[in-house]
């Protein structure tokens, strides 16, 4: 009679959240250990092909556990991908358990009897040998035999370092698998990174609930979104203020998040924090190229679309969307502006740092290199907005955000026009008789008006918001399309930060 060897005892972490010992696994019957690793294609094949046999093995009293020569999160991911339903354990570097079982190559299936003795083992994929070992049906699909890869406990240090590099790449892939992204690569929000983002702030602090998910927006979740978005910790105070603004009921982010309209959330930043974090309000202010602009706007959008549940194609039903729904954050160029900055117009002191969020569509560029007077330029800027929302939808019933380029702003200043004067003249310039607007999508106001009754594009000059940004050269301003039907208001919040 052959004496069976005692299988080496071990205790390993399981993806189910607790540790499992070998003695747990064979406590009430035999245990099958499948030693595998992420990088080995034969291991993947074995996990896939043996998974259908697990119910039969369970009925026969055999408990099946995959033991990965990988970290726990890799084991979790590979088992999820392969549909493996048994226990999943992790034996990462230095692979003590793998070494104790003298594994040379993976996969290796080791059958342990109820008393903890090794009955037999099968190395590589070998359908016939596994059938004999396990007494269950195993697929005869080609290949019926396939050798595996070297067990990692046999690797030299240099090879292991190369493998770690491959693992880091997959960490990014995992963000896509989890759906923790807007479609671009995202930085994994590890506990360490989120802690660094929080910078000692209380992560459990509740900022509010966000529709449509009615999810609790804690500072920790905002920090996770900020890490995913690629923010540096010094940007975090700006993100917090923007999220606080978004959560104000008067902003109606829930409506904006789910509407068929294309609107996103535009963030304008004023005050000294712009320079402290490097926010761009100059050349290319509405475009790519500046990390603070791109990542602060993206962090806020991730709070809306991930935490808030307004994810495109799911609860976000935007017919077309717009590129600004990825990120839209810029600074006002207060230094080149001849006028009072936005935050001062909204009641904040010039020395304070303030974010203003506005529900808005994509920007429309307005070229004007030819106007010779302020009335002409104000008319050009205003008329560009005449067709926004829909050409005959007058009055708009909402606000339009204009970004005035420094050259246009300087011209107005040289002609002696204040910001208020520009807004008033833009308002006055865009007016039509109601009869000319009565086709296609038009408003109840136009339908009720007499043919010759003048109708303005806006209810009042107050619906024209002006900020100054852009490169010093070039006469291109822009107007953002509106977000309507939401009763949404622009919201400003002071940034709580220290130099």
């Amino acid at each position, binding site marked *: 009679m052959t004496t069976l060897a005692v299988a080496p005892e071990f205790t390993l972490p399981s993806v189910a959240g607790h540790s499992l010992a070998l003695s747990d696994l064979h406590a009430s019957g035999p245990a099958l250990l499948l030693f595998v690793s992420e990088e080995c294609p034969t291991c993947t094949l074995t996990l896939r092909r043996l998974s259908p046999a697990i119910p039969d093995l369970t009925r026969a009293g055999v408990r099946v556990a995959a033991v990965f020569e990988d970290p726990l999160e890799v084991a979790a991911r590979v088992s999820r991908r392969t549909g493996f339903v048994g226990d999943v354990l992790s034996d990462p570097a230095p692979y003590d358990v793998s070494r104790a079982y003298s594994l040379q190559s993976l996969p290796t299936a080791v059958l342990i009897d109820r008393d903890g003795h090794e009955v037999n083992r099968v190395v590589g994929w070998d359908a016939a040998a596994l059938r004999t070992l396990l007494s269950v049906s195993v697929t005869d699909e080609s290949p019926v035999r396939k050798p595996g890869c070297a067990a990692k406990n046999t690797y030299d240090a240099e090879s292991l370092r190369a493998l770690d590099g491959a693992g880091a790449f997959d960490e990014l892939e995992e963000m896509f698998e989890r759906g*923790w992204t807007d479609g671009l690569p995202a930085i*994994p929000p*590890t*506990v360490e990174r989120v802690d660094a983002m929080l910078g000692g702030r209380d992560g459990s602090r509740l900022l509010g609930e966000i529709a449509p998910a009615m*999810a609790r927006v804690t500072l920790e*979740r905002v920090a996770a979104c900020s890490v995913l978005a690629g923010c540096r910790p010094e940007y975090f105070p700006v993100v917090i203020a923007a999220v606080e603004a978004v959560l104000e009921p008067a902003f109606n982010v829930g409506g904006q998040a789910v509407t068929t309209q294309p609107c996103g959330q535009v963030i304008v930043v004023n005050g000294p924090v712009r320079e402290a974090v490097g926010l761009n309000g100059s050349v290319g202010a509405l475009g790519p190229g500046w990390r603070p602009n791109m990542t602060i706007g993206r962090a806020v959008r991730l709070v809306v679309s991930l*935490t808030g549940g307004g994810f495109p194609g799911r609860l976000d039903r935007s017919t077309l969307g717009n590129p600004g729904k990825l990120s839209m954050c810029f600074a006002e160029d207060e230094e080149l502006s001849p006028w009072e900055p936005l935050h001062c117009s909204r009641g904040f002191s010039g020395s304070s740092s303030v974010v203003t969020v506005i529900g808005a569509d994509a920007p429309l560029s307005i070229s004007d290199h030819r106007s010779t007077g302020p009335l002409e330029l104000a008319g050009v800027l205003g008329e560009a907005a005449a067709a926004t929302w829909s050409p005959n939808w007058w009055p708009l019933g909402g606000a339009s955000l204009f970004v005035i380029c420094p050259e246009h702003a300087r011209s107005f200043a040289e002609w002696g026009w204040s910001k208020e004067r520009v807004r008033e003249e833009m308002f006055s310039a865009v007016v039509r008789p109601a009869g000319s607007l009565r086709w296609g999508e038009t408003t109840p106001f136009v339908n009720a008006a007499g043919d010759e009754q003048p109708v303005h594009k806006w209810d009042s000059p107050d619906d024209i918001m002006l900020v100054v940004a852009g490169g010093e050269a070039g006469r291109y301003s822009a107007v953002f399309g509106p977000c309507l*039907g*939401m*009763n949404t208001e622009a919201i400003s919040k002071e940034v709580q930060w220290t130099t």
Partner: protein
Amino acid sequence: MDYVSPFDERSRVTEPLAPRPADLSGARVALLDITKRRGDEFLDRIEELLQSRGAVTFRVVKEIFSKPASPEIVRQIADRGDLAVEGLAD
């Protein structure tokens, strides 16, 4: 590796749907007008059809379509109605 989830991972209790009534005779039906354009026209026609089947209807109107119904509106529907019909979109 441990990650911090951007999601609120609390589990939610899903309320089961109320049983479907065998017929509409005498049923009290709330018609929720969310104030989307022409939603009232849709509900007018639904109301005719419901009344022809013996249902008793009543209107409830949301303040604005783009915000969730207030708890008072939901309470009204629950207290006064056996069924509810909501008209969406334009």
